[in-house]
């Protein structure tokens, strides 16, 4: 694995934030430093498709998806890991893609909202949707739709974890995903609905 070393510099900006860490980050592999903007090769399987990519070490998984691969379904809400809009599944585990450098995920399998339908073992429904996507539409579990891809990936990831069984546990386990439109009760309704469906535990992306 790569060893990472971060060097900080003071700033006069009022908004002291993560970029400062990233900009000055030097990636060190086998003792040889690589500048943050020098591209390195990685391979990722994204939504079932294998990709060989040249990625700068300072590029987050989120920015790689959105800017380079045009998978804009994954959203940038805060870029600080505080809102959950960027949630994707990495090897079946829900991850804030804004907090992951793409180079750190070399070799991983990534599922975004665009690939969610292909994840359920039984295949997508006749509407081409993953059962969770269909339940979100049916229960009106969103309004503006911007947090929705993250909510969907997070809820599938949460079911993979298998810890949440009650409404209270779902609410707790989904609290990393903010919905400013306030669709929370409908989100929980949608997840409960999917959980109640037959064979849900096997079918909903546990494959990864």
């Amino acid at each position, binding site marked *: 694995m790569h060893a990472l070393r971060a060097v900080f510099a003071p*700033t006069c*900006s*009022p*908004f002291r*934030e993560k*970029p*400062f860490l990233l*900009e000055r980050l030097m990636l060190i592999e086998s003792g040889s430093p690589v500048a*943050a*903007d020098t591209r390195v090769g990685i391979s990722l399987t994204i939504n079932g498709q294998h990709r060989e990519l040249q990625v*700068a070490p*300072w590029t987050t998984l989120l*920015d790689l998806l*959105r800017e380079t691969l*045009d*998978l*804009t*379904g994954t*959203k*940038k*809400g*805060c*870029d*600080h890991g*505080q*809102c959950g*809009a960027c949630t994707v599944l990495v090897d079946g585990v829900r991850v804030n893609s804004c907090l992951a450098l793409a180079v750190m995920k070399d070799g991983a399998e990534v599922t*975004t*909202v*665009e690939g969610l*339908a292909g994840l359920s073992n039984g295949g997508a429904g006749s*509407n*081409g*949707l993953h059962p969770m*996507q269909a339940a979100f*539409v049916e229960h*009106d579990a*969103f*309004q*503006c*739709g*911007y*947090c*929705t*891809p993250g909510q*969907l990936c997070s809820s599938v990831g949460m079911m993979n974890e298998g810890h949440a069984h009650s409404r209270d546990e*779902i*609410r*707790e386990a*989904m*609290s*990393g*995903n903010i919905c*400013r*439109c*306030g*669709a*929370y*009760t*409908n989100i929980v309704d949608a997840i409960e609905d999917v959980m109640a469906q037959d064979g849900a535990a096997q079918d909903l992306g546990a494959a990864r």
Partner: protein
Amino acid sequence: MTQTFSSTGHDSFVGTPRNRVDGPAKVTGLAKYAGEFTAADLAHGYVVSSAIARGRISAIDTAAAEAVPGVIKVLTHENRSRTAWLDYNYQDAVAPPGSPFRALYDDKIAFSGQPVALVVAEDFETARHAATLVKVAYEAEEPKTSADAVRAFAYDPPKKRAGIKPPPKPWGDADAAYDAAPIKLQNEYRLAVEHHNPMEPHASTVVYEGDGKYTVYDKVQGVSNSHNYLAAVFGLKKDDVRVLNPYLGGGFGSGLRPQYQLFLAMLAARDLERSVRVVLTRDQMWSFTYRPDAIQTVSLGSGEDGQLQALRHDAIGVTSHYEDYQEVVVNWSGVLYKCDNVALTYKIAQLDTASPGDMRAPGAVTGVFAIETAMDELAHEAGLDPIALRLRNFSEADATSEDKPFGSKALKACFTQGAERFGWAKRTPAPRSMREGHELVGWGMATGVWESMMQQSSAHAILSADGKLEVGNSTGDIGTGTYTILTQIAADTLGLPMEDVTTKLGDTRLPEAPVAGGSWTAASSGTAVMKACRNVGEQVFKLARAMEGSPLANVDFDRVSFANGRIAVAGDDSRSVALVDVLKAAGVETVEATESAGPDKDFASQYEAYTHSAVFVEVRVDEELGQIRLTRVVSAVAAGKILNPKTARSQILGGVVMGIGSALHEESMMDHRLGRFMNHNLGEYHVPANADIYDIDVIFVDEEDKANPLGVKGLGEIGIVGTAAAVANAVFHATGKRIRHLPITIDKVLG
């Protein structure tokens, strides 16, 4: 007076719960937002924000930033190209009076976080990195950012903001009546500064099409506003700029006005003659509009029976130094309650901040919190049930508007049905009288009110030979369900299945419509779409009647109905003809119409129109930890006809959740020495998360209203109004502690 909707045909879809037509696009990631459109020549702009709140830039050094490989240009006030000179060019459709902020205009700093440079680079990471290398030296002055520090300088704004009713003239003698009243209550109420924080940060993508033409994707609640702004500010022909925004990742008012990222993206694109995108960071979402604090004093005088004898509501709001932002804060007290001696005043004071702006139910969230908490205090003082007190002082006419009657006011039904659903009758009135385990249980209620408005709006309808219908205009669906309700209205008006109707919004090539705000979109765009479809229907009818052997021969238009893709003689389905057959027989490819709709002046001259609600809340307060769980909410709403109970319910849920945020969580904390919000991120500015929200029950009571042909009154705001007061009243009931300063945090409960 206008006809009601059902006269247009069958209500097959309108009034029934329907899934969002844009749902599949939103759950698959196909819905694209402003910062997600791209171009082959796209450059990325990153904003450098001011580190001081007041003063001037003494020097700005961009050399190190410009030396970074991949940096194209750094724009500052020293090298910016010329834009319009006079203020009015910068005044957008909802601007308050004043001189709108101009980014990179000169060396003056008016607020913390003000953009001082835009770094444009080939990729996002390079722009972000180079932005940290821009060296800015300032001459700082001491900022004033506290409402308390400037309250002595508050003034009555000389120029009133369009669409914002100033307080009415006082009636009776509120001060004398107060002095004489057997029960007197006078208290100060405050709420925290709040930031909208839609999940999508503000973003603009300006695509340069060559030859001085641009396609712009802007995060805005109505593209026409940005379109007019760009044309005026940059001296462009309107035909050379097209602004689109098919989806908006939340607005809540923050996207009503074109914000500075639009100006910066356009400035860079014009200078560089290439496409530029500017996306603000979450932190920078604290560098423009916000819900202003207000210092409010409510004075209530009543008889022993709780009958109001005096009502004073005085508010000092805040604004920036460059615009007189105004909202309706105090009038609601005079609208809701009947009282013979009333004085309502509203002044503003200037702070060294960006201009505040409209945030969901602007002014009403503020003012109704104060009056509805005060009324709960009066109920307690007079020994009355809070609902009984409100009924005793119930207004049957709008005293703030020459006692005009309300077009409709089903608030009593909200009280009855809300109380029933909540189980209010089981409440024991004494504070601290209900308890379960280690938690004190409190039940509180409050009234909500918002103005029901309609704006001039146009829309088109195009029926094609294949039977498909397109309708649309330039307003935005900000998550409210506009795509869906317009599809329902169009489908019903022409008797088509919803699947055959496509609604297009958020494009300046479509007929002009106002920004989506104020809860006016359903009434405004809905009526315009209905009229356009009606016009298409009439044209098709004329073609049908002219057909050889027409089953509609000698029938008048008002005797036909549209259903199942056919025009039929009303009540005689055997005499009908399919729309597609009519177009085929006439040999026409499309039948089109554009219509506009506006407020009904006859109605407005006779009536005032408001939506109302009754909000019931249960809180559970840990006596030792002061922690509050908000376990139950019932919001009973009277808002005229409900077009789609499913999306309508969601709007109320969202309003209630944001109201819970106001009540318990949201607080932008200013460091007054620096004039800077300290908690400018979603980790430290707490908006309600899933675990904070328990059960919310929404009731729509029947209410018939004739302000517009659809009978709708709007739903975007009413869900939030009153919610915070209901929570505060429940906390009082649980704990015996009256908290008049939001948010109600643990320190205040224990303190």
